[in-house]
């Protein structure tokens, strides 16, 4: 297992109207293997840019990211992605979607079939293998996306607002599922979210980012994720400590948003 290290990470975009936007400015952090990190921040603070750089879809204009000893220079199998909208291949069935990565590697179909069944079982979709994905609900599609990513056994799982498009009830169930998978597989997971509650619950560590220039504003170490594995998540969300932290972070983000509005 290997740690994720960001060193002096900067990202500057040229804007059409002239001038530049500092999406990221000197971001430094280390994510240890097996940690669960959630990243929170107002719109335009560079969360998605950070994730895209780690995934290898974009190249930083300054600094570098290392996974283990290797510098990240492009997309790779060792970093799995889960998107807001499943980004499933709708022309394939559920199991064909899940074993997409294995097929690309040329894994023996018999072996991969067994793995697909196992993973469908874990995400609670056993028996749905032959159904076309477009017939499934949003929550089920996100489960497929999760299974499709995990079957490749990545070192790091990157999630870009994975539960953003789901209804409240499904969202809670999925939060538990993410926690369960984190605990059972011991994977390093990085989740980007808009929801403060979700960030608190799904973050062993929590980065609050600030915009203009995009930077790490504050870091928290939180107990809720660990507790969420065993306890009922709704009880945790109602606990005094949870509410206190939530209000603190909400105020922080509100202030940032107001500052931006003021600038405009």
């Amino acid at each position, binding site marked *: 297992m290997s740690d994720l290290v960001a060193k002096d990470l900067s990202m500057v975009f040229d804007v059409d109207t002239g001038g530049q936007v500092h999406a990221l400015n000197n971001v430094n952090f280390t994510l240890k293997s097996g940690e669960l990190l959630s990243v929170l921040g107002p719109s335009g603070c560079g969360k998605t840019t950070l994730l895209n750089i780690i995934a290898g*879809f974009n190249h930083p204009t300054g600094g570098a990211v290392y996974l283990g000893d290797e510098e990240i220079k492009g997309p*790779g199998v060792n*970093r799995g992605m889960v998107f807001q909208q499943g980004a499933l*291949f709708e022309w394939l069935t559920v199991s064909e979607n899940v074993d*997409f990565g294995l097929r*690309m590697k040329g894994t023996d179909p018999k072996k991969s079939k067994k793995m697909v069944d196992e993973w469908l079982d874990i995400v609670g979709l056993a028996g749905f293998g032959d159904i076309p994905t*477009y017939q499934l609900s949003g929550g089920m599609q996100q489960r497929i996306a999760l299974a499709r*990513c995990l079957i490749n056994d990545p070192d790091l799982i*990157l999630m870009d607002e994975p539960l953003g498009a789901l209804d409240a009830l499904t969202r809670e169930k999925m939060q538990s599922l993410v926690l369960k998978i984190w605990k059972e597989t011991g994977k390093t997971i990085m989740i980007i979210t808009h929801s403060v509650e979700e960030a608190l619950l799904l973050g062993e560590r929590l980065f609050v980012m600030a915009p203009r220039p995009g930077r790490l504003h504050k870091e928290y170490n939180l107990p809720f994720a660990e507790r969420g594995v065993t306890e009922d998540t709704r009880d945790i969300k109602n606990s005094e400590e949870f509410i206190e932290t939530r209000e603190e972070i909400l105020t922080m983000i509100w202030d940032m948003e107001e500052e931006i509005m003021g600038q405009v």
Partner: protein
Amino acid sequence: MFEFLFEYRGFIVGTIFIALIATVIWAILYGRNLIRTEKSDAVFGNPERALGGWHWVMTGVSAILIVWIYFSWDAARAFNPKAANELCQVGKLSSAINPIRSTFPLDDGFLKGTSLLVRENKQLNELADQVERLGFSDAEKSQAKETIDLMRKAIIGMTSPEYLDSATDAKFKEIVSRIDGLTAKLADQNYPGDPTAEQIAAAEKNPRWGDSGNEIPAAPASPRGYKFDAAAKEMKTITSDFSKIRNNNSNFLAQVEKLKGQIASLDTLVKASPGTDELLIANRADFVKGLTRVLRRVDDGNIFPPDALNNIQNALVKLDNEQKSQQGGLRYYDILMMPGGEIRAGSSSCSEQGSGRWLPKPSDTLRTFARISNPEIGYKGYPLLWYKMKPFGEMVDFIIPDFIASLVPGDYPRHDTNGIVTPNFKSKVRDFATGNFESFKVPMPSGHVWDSLLRVLAGLFFGIILGVPLGLFMGLSRFSKGFFDPLIELYRPVPPLAWAPLILTIFGIGDDGKIFLLFMVAFAIMVISARTGATGTHLSKIHAAHSLGATNRQILRKVILPNSLPEILTGIRIAIGVCWGTLVAAEMLAGTTGIGFVENVARKQSDYEIIWTTIIILGLLGLLFDLMMRWVIDKFIPWRGKG
């Protein structure tokens, strides 16, 4: 093989016609009932409202067929097959009356004499205007004016009743009494008496209505027919006698003679002092010619005093009324069941005119279709769609390129001193590649339809094979987009037929040119649709595939290509339609087989049944292709628009 059906065409078409009308009535009642009973009908604008509705499909199809059967007079033929023959006799009488009839203002326009008078006066006024402008000497001027005045007097000499001589008047009276006599005969039940043996024989030899194109059996075959036929013959003599009558009264003839002298002396006068201006000389000559021409027309004596022909007109009206009443029910059958035209008698035969001519009857069209579908007959010695036994070698020749023989080392064998050629390996390879060997025969489709189909499919095939990859690359690479875009966008908007003359010149009138033309059409459409599909791929899908470890090649094949399938299939659907259109037009330009060729030959021969047959074949093939593509789309991309 369907000839026996044609024997009963009247019964079949009549039954179908009535059934179609019943279907329309049933479907309308059913539809109204459905609306009334479906209380939960969706609001306006809800697409659910357009679902279902087979009864409306039946109504639509029935309506088309009813219009076709009705306006092509197939219904008329089905319910009363003898009507056309009888109307042909009526038409004979009409065309016998018409020359006299058109002299009178019975349908529309002026009395013939009036319009002649107006025309001649107009000409004379124009000539009078010219007199001042032609630089005549005084003597010439007065001579010209005098001539024109004299001409006007001569015309008055014809229109004035006092000059009409008694012989002409007697001729008019004779015509009136002959027409009245004919009217009386028409009213007589026994006219013209029993048909002669010859007439009966001719009637028996009559073919059926429509057995030869749009010709109608001309020999009378019914009592009413005999009557009208005889009346037509008699009328013809009356007409020809009438047309010989001239207004040649002595006063008029004297004036004409005088006029001739006047014009001749004007001519000599003008020619005596021509002057030097060539244009004037020519114009003066024209002036004199113009005078001569007017005189020649006035000379015909076709203008009579205004009321001189009144009795003939009245007699004609009476005759017309009588022949209409003698037609009886036939007249209403003609108006009701034979819309959009009439049956007209020519000099030797009768034919359908109007929609009955250019819109062939469904039964005839089907018979023609059945006839040329017969591979033994076909069209221009080539079947529509059949099979042909072809040696397997021909296919080998087609598939294996001939140059592989040249790749074999060594030389071809030479003949030896005894004139014998011993084949070696190289020559054997060549024989194989050119299909020059004994082989079994396999059935291959052939025919006009197959040739057209093959051209479309070949053009489409190459268009897809080359267009889709290029389109995908253009959607993915800046170079391919920039490089190929101007090329394709420049040639695409040019209508394919504008390319046709050039391409047919380069590739010849065989299959190559047409296939290349269709390839051009299909290629542009496929490139554009594949490009749209490729650019429409959602970025997150590409990202997902990358992080799942797919290589660029795999992403192209497993993500971008399937993602573009809806656009590609829509492109194919459009391309098929455009290709058909282009192909038929190209086949009309050049070639010796294909549906377009058939239609073009039929057009030159005015063979409307074949024209409609090809139209129906094209329509059905288009429908078949579209249904096939719809099925393919439903079957292979049910996920379309659901990602």
